[in-house]
């Protein structure tokens, strides 16, 4: 093994399972200060980079599509470019790379690329694979989504998230995780906080320790087999609004989405310019039946102050979502604006 090879860790997990939240926490830890980050989002408007506090020059976002589907070559080229920048001193020094995949990414081709691509061979080595699993929806997602099963099966570490919503880890979920990957320790993240020394500490990827299914997937990829990567009904789209959105309109909008979309709302995330809070944008997250209360950023992360909400849905038409927001905005246009609502209410959908 080349001593100078830089470990590339893969952070994966199904949509909304808490990857970015955990990465955000990790990047604040001193031991992660020399980390370059590559993020792949499935959608036309990237947001995760706005939510991470990584240095600009050691951060790359791949936005041309899902990492596993279209841009396998792009990944290798991106890594090669990142290494070139490092060699030439054109970016902050780093000795670790973390790739955050999109929630719909099939991990197999990504791992295959990291292990085999000749353009980066010798310079990088596959580090650990960490998979986040939502304790609220994880069991149902594992039941329904083959991609989620793959993500769990290839993990060196499984990190359970959202136990604050789900309560103690349910035996049924733990049994499912064990069935797909008995060898991976299961860690717990508390609002993204996880033991940073444990989470990426498993060393280099070893195919021998993975289940037979994982070997089969990776072998398939090596032979260039074609697979239907994603459910054809899954669509990603974004709503962008120049004008601020009233808080009450956002609440009603989320309420309607929770009521009518349910499990078909695979993921919603957004940064929203709230009329009543012009300097502190709201970050909203929703996964299937669970919509979180908004988190308030201290300031806008960039000069772009538009509201941007990304949806990853199954069979939910974009136009319906757009008209819903417009109609609700029009409906509440005559409501007086109150700039200080100390304890207003936000609708949250209960887990199924």
């Amino acid at each position, binding site marked *: 093994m080349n001593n100078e090879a830089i470990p590339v860790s893969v952070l994966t997990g199904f949509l909304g399972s808490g990857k970015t939240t955990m990465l955000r926490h990790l990047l604040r830890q001193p031991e992660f200060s020399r980390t370059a980050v590559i993020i792949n989002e499935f959608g036309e408007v990237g947001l995760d980079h706005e939510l991470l506090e990584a240095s600009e020059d050691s951060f790359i976002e791949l936005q041309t599509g899902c990492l596993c589907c279209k841009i396998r070559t792009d990944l290798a080229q991106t890594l090669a470019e990142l290494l070139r920048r490092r060699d030439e001193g054109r970016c902050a020094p780093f000795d670790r790379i973390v790739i955050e995949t999109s929630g719909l990414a099939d991990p197999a081709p990504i791992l295959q690329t990291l292990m085999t691509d000749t353009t980066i061979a010798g310079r990088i080595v596959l580090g650990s694979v960490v998979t986040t699993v939502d304790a609220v929806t994880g069991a149902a997602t594992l039941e329904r989504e083959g991609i989620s099963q793959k993500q769990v099966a290839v993990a060196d570490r499984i990190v359970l998230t959202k136990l604050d919503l789900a309560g103690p880890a349910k035996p049924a979920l733990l049994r499912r995780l064990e069935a797909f990957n008995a060898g991976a320790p299961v860690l717990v993240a508390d609002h993204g906080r996880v033991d940073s020394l444990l989470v990426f500490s498993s060393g280099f990827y070893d195919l021998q320790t993975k289940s037979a299914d994982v070997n089969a997937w990776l072998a398939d990829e090596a032979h260039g087999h074609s697979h239907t990567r994603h459910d054809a009904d899954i669509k990603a789209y974004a709503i962008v609004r120049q004008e601020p959105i009233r*808080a*009450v309109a956002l*609440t*009603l909008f989320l*309420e*309607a989405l*929770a*009521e*009518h979309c*349910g499990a078909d709302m695979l993921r919603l995330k957004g940064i929203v310019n*709230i009329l*009543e*809070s012009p300097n*502190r944008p709201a970050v909203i997250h929703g996964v299937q*039946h669970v919509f979180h*209360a*908004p988190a*308030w950023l201290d300031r806008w992360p960039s000069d772009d102050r538009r509201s941007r909400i990304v949806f990853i849905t199954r*069979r*939910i*038409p974009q*136009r*319906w979502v757009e*008209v*819903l927001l*417009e*109609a*609700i905005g*029009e*409906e509440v246009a005559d409501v007086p604006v109150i*700039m*200080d*609502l*100390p*304890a*207003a*209410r*936000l*609708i*949250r*959908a*209960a887990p*199924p």
Partner: protein
Amino acid sequence: MSEVGELVHELLVQSLAAWRVAGSVARASDGALEIGGNRKDIRIERAPPHLMFRWMVTIDGRTRGAISLVAVLRQVREAIDPGYAANRLRIAVAPLVPSQ
């Protein structure tokens, strides 16, 4: 009674499509919207100004008030979509805007 706006008209049309239920939305001569589907007759109109509701929803002759479009959609879908089971909701007290 004022006419129901075009945006609401489109929202209802789009909602039927999103819910994947058969039905139609038409405008009545008095400006209300009439929805047909699942052998139900539904009429949406603006509530009179003296009532606390924004909307009045009449389903097979029974009229109920609705305080928001979200409530209108709920009533319409419950009537027109036999397979609909609204997601259970719980209310969390949380700041709607950040404390200063």
